[in-house]
């Protein structure tokens, strides 16, 4: 038997998911019942690290205006979707700056990007803000099985001090549930698949009810164990138990939703990904984007983050013709050869991102596409990687936001406009009541 035959036998039956088609590309669009009525609004953040060669990013425009059909080398592929996205200029992530804390721009960029907060310089008692996705998750996450999903294509770095006294936790996670509880991403496509669709659903309602009862009883026991244990511990230990208690209660709620969802399930097909993590980013990111699209499609969640790579990543990009590590090259000091290589990586990341746009645009939902019903931010917490700038960040905002966005434009905001203002605008569209987050000074208008 050849391995290919084996694959075809590996289809699983999962939660609301029939896995039947042999190839990822042949995925059948979902017909989730939610989509039949008003489509829900989704929000995702796709991150790339180490800054961008900005000279090859912005359109040749001096003021706001329609996006031209010709875009510079890095953003060129986006031109194909120029009526579905906008480029936002002038936004700043002030929390990423030193502000008296010295070096460590990469650690800060990762930790401040979605939190809009200046993180504490620490390897132990870490502290930053709550990230935009988690604010949304806490307010509207109750409507879906997963309040949010955290995904990535690069495993976190082990070791305590990643960037000049900043804990690796800062650059390992974009998403922060509390100021000290990061939400590390899932990087294994197979594990993500199992998490989303691998739940064992017993079609027999009696057996299913019993399994539910068992799970509920187990949760009761461990919650009560945790509560008692917590009461007998000192301060620092109690904080650890609080994380535990929050997580268990979160799951308790999710289980009830899953049961409801079973009754309203739609059908989506996808091949079970291989257990190994692909080692090209092209292949890896495609699997993750497939899963992200599926998660949105089936209404498993409405909020997601996905880091193509982590701040200070030293990953080489041989698939883009760059054998050197990414981070080292970005400190190019004007060397044209290095600039060329960084630009190649930057362009390659955009090429990866295009796949997500393709997928989301291909999903029909009611009167539009999944992309129409989404707000996807693509960008980095650093603009000029050579000098660690945190202003005029590269920001793509894709999707129509259920008709609340006006794509097709380059919008230039006043210098130093906080990135957080964009987040506030997005949160309000998501139906989360947030007038303020991080260092925001208001809601970004003219979107």
């Amino acid at each position: 038997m050849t391995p290919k035959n084996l694959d075809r036998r590996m289809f699983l039956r999962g939660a609301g998911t029939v896995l039947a088609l042999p190839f990822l590309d042949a995925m059948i669009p979902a017909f989730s019942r939610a989509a039949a009525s008003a489509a829900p609004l989704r929000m995702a953040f796709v991150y790339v690290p180490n800054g961008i060669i900005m000279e090859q990013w912005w359109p040749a425009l001096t003021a706001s205006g329609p996006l031209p059909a010709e875009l510079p080398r890095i953003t060129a592929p986006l031109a194909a979707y120029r009526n579905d996205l906008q480029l936002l200029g002038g936004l700043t992530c002030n929390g990423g700056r030193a502000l008296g804390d010295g070096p460590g721009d990469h650690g800060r960029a990762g930790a401040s990007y979605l939190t809009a907060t200046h993180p504490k310089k620490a390897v132990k008692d870490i502290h930053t803000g709550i990230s935009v996705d988690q604010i949304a998750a806490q307010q509207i996450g109750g409507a879906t099985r997963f309040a949010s999903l955290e995904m990535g294509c690069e495993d976190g770095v082990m070791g305590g001090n990643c960037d000049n006294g900043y804990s690796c936790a800062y650059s390992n996670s974009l998403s922060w549930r509390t100021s000290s509880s990061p939400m590390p991403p899932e990087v294994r496509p197979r594990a993500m698949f199992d998490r989303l669709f691998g739940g064992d659903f017993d079609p027999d309602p009696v057996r299913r009810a019993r399994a539910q009862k068992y799970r509920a009883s187990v949760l009761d026991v461990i919650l009560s164990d945790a509560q008692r244990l917590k009461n007998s511990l000192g301060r620092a230990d109690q904080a650890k138990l609080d994380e535990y208690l929050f997580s268990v209660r979160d799951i308790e709620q999710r289980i009830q939703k899953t049961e409801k969802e079973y009754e309203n399930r739609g059908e989506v097909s996808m091949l079970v990904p291989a257990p190994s993590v692909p080692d090209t980013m092209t292949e890896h990111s495609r699997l993750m984007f497939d899963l992200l699209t599926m998660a949105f499609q089936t209404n498993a969640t409405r909020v997601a983050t996905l880091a193509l790579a982590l701040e200070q990543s030293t990953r080489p990009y041989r698939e883009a013709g760059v054998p050197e590590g990414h981070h080292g090259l970005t400190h190019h000091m004007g060397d044209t050869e290095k600039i060329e290589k960084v630009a190649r990586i930057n362009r390659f990341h955009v090429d990866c991102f295009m796949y997500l746009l393709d997928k989301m645009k291909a999903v029909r939902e009611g009167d539009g596409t999944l992309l129409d019903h989404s707000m996807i931010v693509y960008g980095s917490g650093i603009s000029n990687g050579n000098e660690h700038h945190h202003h005029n960040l590269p920001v793509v905002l894709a999707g129509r936001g259920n008709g609340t966005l006006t794509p097709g434009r380059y919008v230039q905001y006043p210098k130093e406009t906080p990135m957080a203002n964009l987040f506030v605008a997005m949160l309000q569209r998501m139906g989360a009541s947030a007038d303020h987050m991080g260092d925001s000074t208001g809601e970004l208008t003219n979107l």
Partner: protein
Amino acid sequence: MKCGLALLAALPVLAVSPADTYRTTVQPVLAARCYGCHNDKLRTAGLSLESAALTQAGVWEKVADQLSARRMPPAGLPAPTAAEVLAVTAWVRTLPGVTNQLPNPGRVTARRLNRTEYNNTVRDLLGIYGHPANDFPVDDAGFGFDNNGDVLTLSPMLMEKYLASAERLSRLAVFGPTLPKQPGLLASLMPKKGPDAALRPSSSGTTTPYSIRGAMYANFVFPVDAEYEIRVRVINHRDQLSINYTGPREELLASLDAARKGAPTRTKKGDSRTAFPPEKLLLTLDGKPILEDVIEGDTDYLYDRGAFVARVPVKAGEHFIRASFPALADYDDPRRNINPDFRRRMFVEFAEIAGPYNPSPEPPESYRKIFVCGHKPGQHNAECTGKVLQNFALRAYRRPLGTAEMDRLAGLVDLARRQGDSFEEGIRLAMEAVLASPGFLFRTELDPVPSAHAIDDFELASRLSYFLWSTMPDEELFRLALARKLRQPGVLEAQTRRMLADSKAQALTDNFAGQWLGIQHIERKSPDPDRFPAVDEELLEAMHQESNLFVSEMIRQDHSILDFIDAPFTWLNGPLAMHYGIPGVKGEAFRRVVLDGSQRSGILTQASVLTVSAFPTRTSVVTRGKWVLENLLGTPPPPPPPDVPSLVESSIGSDASLRTKMEQHRNNPSCMSCHVAMDPIGFGLENYDASGAWRILDGKFPIDASGTLPGGKAFDGAAGLKQVLKSNADLFSRNLTEKLMTFALGRGVESYDRSTVESIATDLAAHGYRFSRLVLDIVKSDAFQQRGADGGVKP
């Protein structure tokens, strides 16, 4: 600590004012050792000791701290004598406003089991070997190690995985794995087809590393005791005669190079294929041959012939499978196995595992570990509940079970029975709760009294086992803890020695040394295949293996820790010895090799370290210098300034050597002060390229591996550098003490630990720097044996 107290008690007798002592004994030391940088003019790091007032208690405390930790003066500058350090530190303690450092054993925050500990604990608790935690997110690390309670967080996603894992593991443990009715295909292992991912098969299956020599290897977890078939298919592309593979290496490479530029030429069909000698194929399980066969010279794809099949009895659990062509290990260059079209001449295309045939009727190991009441499956009675749960929960929680906890678990067994399920299902449900409960997932320590106190015997047993084994205590430790005998004279030392001799102490190599030396990062490294075409993933793995075997011997044979720096032995196999240019080591198996020390000896000249401290395309004297300062001497350089200029990469080796380039770069004054300490160390290692191979040229320029450290100490090459390091034995042993303490305690080493580090380092020097002495000193320290008061010293 005791030493510090004695001093405090003795000082009033002296009846000299701090100002007098300052003039007579302190200032001369400062003037000689510190004023060079910390003077009014330079104010290095914003500090001048020339004008610091005696009332600035904070400043002087820091001075005492830096001096006694030997962090200042920086490595390379003349170090103060022990007497000089004592003169300053003792004086600082007499200053008004200096905190009286009362003995403080420190307080460890509740530690969630990290991924390694979870895997190992599940293995020992249940007899399940599947590495379930490999699917959990990466653990964050603090102070260089991933077992730090403060930074080990728990997200809802991880909790979800804990719950799913608890259910799956309890099911596996009680009912065994679900197996197909008929034996069938269990797994397909697919070796990557090239150094670049683009060449790997896109279909699924578990991919295994790329081997230029065409080998395939992987660990596989066999579900039950049974017979299994391992099927291997080989591709034989030895039909392209345009290269004379038996000729000299240079000719081979030249012809490969020519083929790269032009179209590869294929020979006429049928042209002397039989000229290829039969090549041996070897399939091993845990290193033992289970199949030997030959690949004939006159076949090519072998599709018609099908796979080679070995059928063998295998015990449940994890085993190592390897299929290879042993003769290829002894090639002088692995590229002899590459055709002009860059396909390998022979390689394992895939391996499949099928089974289980004739599975053992005995219940699995896990069943015996759980159902301890002595009945056969299906014949348990209600009295078993207490016995089974007590036994299981004690081992899972690593402490005896409370009555209320017991009642809640028994309640789950009752629930299952009431629903009409079996007794086993009830136990399984209770186990699911145990495996998801904080008592299992966290290592917590209680505070029976609010002040500092000795931890109880169970807590001590856990500290020991997670320190030395990265797993739960075994039966013997539990027995001693239960009998409260762990602290009886001699017992702790005897147990520590027993544990160090146990095979589970391999965890200390993998987890402690792997993180201390950064060698576990080799998995993430990939030297550029264009520049290092003979370095494949198999060789990178061999580098890792060399360091693991080296460190294991250090621990097992109880070497002096100074042997880390310089030791006349290592462990090599044929391919790695070839990479090093060491003759006489043949074959695929690793063996102990005695070194002459001229090019290799000690951890610093092992390819693993040299590769993790290099870039994919070239060496980095800065990274290597920093690696030595940070990991061996414990004196990390300060971070670079934000606008750090870098090198023009492409011209290295073509218009100037890396060294010349670096020297130009260093002339920038803002870079000078730190690079003057890092770079000479890195230059001393320039004879090793970015994959750790020996070289005498950098591009077309001869290597100059000489250096002068700040303070004027000159050396030449790695051998000279090692002499310098060995002359700093004190600094090295102090640093290793701190690192091992950090790992042992699961918390950072704080200023109140200073005297512990101090006394361990002194004791270590007096006992030949034996590794076991270091471990014992840590185990016997108050920091390890006690728990500080809540709200005690917090940074």
